[in-house]
């Protein structure tokens, strides 16, 4: 492509620079706030750079109540729920994805139905699930959150992995079957290792979806289980709002997201469009 005139390139740089400022400022502001004392938060003009970058807010926010904000419980519970739902979805979803990619059992209809469950409005499934979980005494347990999140992760995993399997040339598996391997063997020993990067990407996406999930955590838990997405709004709704400490919980809550945004970039478009756009 030809080099564009200098003026046009400067304009372009200005636009992208402004975009970066706009899209990163709220995140940076939360990071700065997480180091501010209450006096620094409640001051006008607002303090941009806090006087000290001591980790006081983080230590107080992470400790359990009554003297702390319980952030560490959020980290623990978010990890347990996200990792469990991820594991179930990938274990159950990978064979199904392979089968859909290679054999189309049930034709287009079955695989379409699977994906359409992903698009369920959560608020529509929340009430019946709530009543079921109450009946089974599963409210405020990990089980309820793991099950509810799997509704959305399993179809996602199947659909995305199906795309990865379809990208694989079929000849290797054919050769394996001719050599006497079973279909499941061709999946486990030939296809699965070849899409290993795809499995990792899919698993990480599923982890993030649960990590970010809010409505189910709000409705199905109370005190025994409290994910990070629950802790932040509940502290904002508290009678004494300690902005610095809440921001500290917020910063901890977005660490995996920021890391994965940087790591997964090549696969983001595929994951976020349910495989519709491959990038």
């Amino acid at each position, binding site marked *: 492509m030809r080099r564009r005139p200098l003026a046009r390139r400067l304009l372009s740089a200005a636009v*992208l620079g402004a*975009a*970066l400022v*706009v*899209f*990163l400022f*709220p995140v940076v*502001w*939360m990071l700065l*706030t997480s180091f501010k004392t209450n006096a620094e938060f*409640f*001051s*006008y003009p*607002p303090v941009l750079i806090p006087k000290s970058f001591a980790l006081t807010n983080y230590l107080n926010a992470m400790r359990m109540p009554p003297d702390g904000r319980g952030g560490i419980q959020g980290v623990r519970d978010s990890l347990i729920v996200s990792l469990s739902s991820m594991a179930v979805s990938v274990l*159950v979803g990978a*064979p*199904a994805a392979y*089968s859909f990619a*290679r*054999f189309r*059992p049930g034709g287009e209809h*079955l695989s379409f139905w*699977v*994906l*359409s469950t992903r*698009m*369920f409005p959560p*608020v*529509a499934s929340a*009430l019946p699930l709530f009543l*079921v979980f109450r009946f089974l005494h599963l409210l405020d347990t990990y089980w309820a959150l793991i099950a509810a999140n799997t*509704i959305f992760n*399993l*179809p996602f995993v199947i659909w995305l992995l199906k795309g990865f399997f379809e990208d694989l040339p*079929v000849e290797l598996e054919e050769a394996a079957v001719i050599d006497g391997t*079973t279909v499941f063997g061709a999946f486990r020993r030939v296809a699965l290792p070849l899409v290993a990067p795809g499995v990792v990407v899919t698993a990480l996406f599923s982890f993030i979806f649960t*990590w*970010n999930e*809010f*409505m189910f955590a*709000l409705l199905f838990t109370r005190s025994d289980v409290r994910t990070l*997405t629950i802790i*932040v*709004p509940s502290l*904002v709704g508290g009678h004494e709002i300690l902005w610095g400490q809440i*921001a500290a919980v*917020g910063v901890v*809550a*977005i660490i995996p997201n*920021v890391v994965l*945004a*940087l790591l997964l*970039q090549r696969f*983001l*478009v595929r994951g*976020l469009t*349910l495989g*519709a*756009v491959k*990038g």
Partner: protein
Amino acid sequence: MATRVGPEVAVPARSSAAVRRLRWTPVLMVLPAVAVLLAITVFPLLYTLRLTVVSWELTTGFPPAFVGLQNFVRVFGDPRFGNAMKNTGLLVLVGVGAQTVLGTALALELNQLRRARTTVLSLLLIPVMIAPVIAGFQFRMIYNDQFGPLNYLLDLLTHGAVRGAAWLADPRIALWAVMATDVWQWTPFMTLVVLAGLQAIPGELLEAAEVDGAAGPQAVWHVVLPLLLPVIVVGVLVRVMDTFKLFDIVYQLTAGGPGSVTETIAFYTYLQGFKFFSLGYTSAMAFIQLAVITVVAQVFLRYQRRVRAGIAA
């Protein structure tokens, strides 16, 4: 992608046992997944359907009573549902519209970069990845009318000529403040999608357009955008489905207020179900949302096949 029919793996014609295994293994492999999905989606669906025809108010203690289609009649006569519908409609039309226009413009700029492109895109994508509830918290601080950076910036830039607003408490502004947060979070998503589409356009096409005398904005409008349309449609459909379910940001920023000016359908359904405990009525509303989403999802599914077969494949 051409439609492929039948088993992809060649059948070694050895024994009928092998053939039978080949026929049944694929079914066995999808069975656990289908069973799990049936258990956690179809059951709630049928249960919801059954609840739509009863009146069941947990607050009164009366047992559920059959009311026929009364709940649906009530939905369409409920001004608060109409209000939530209008708000959600605005968020979809104006909000997703803004994300599409801004996102496409950014993608066209970003496409001009060479080495810096990956880095800039990664940074822009951070909002997309973080939890909506956390995004809501960030904007709660930014919108703070006394100590927030937004009102300070307005004050500074206009030397006090423009008075900052109570962004989340002013009923004329609150919905737009909620929308701005959603636009902030998802514009980079559209950028990502459009950029992927741009990179799939063969360079020769653009050169041919240039030879034909189309350059700059003209080439973009007449050559690039039509080619991008399928990808943009997929991105828009994903966003429409998500925005239709918008809940987290509303909960964190305004809790539907002031009054009910920022209530979305998802938020109002949550209120009816989990604050007012009107189970039959909630189910009727949930069912209507399910129907709307199903229609959009069907369009998405048909479209996605075309896009995968087309330029973005």
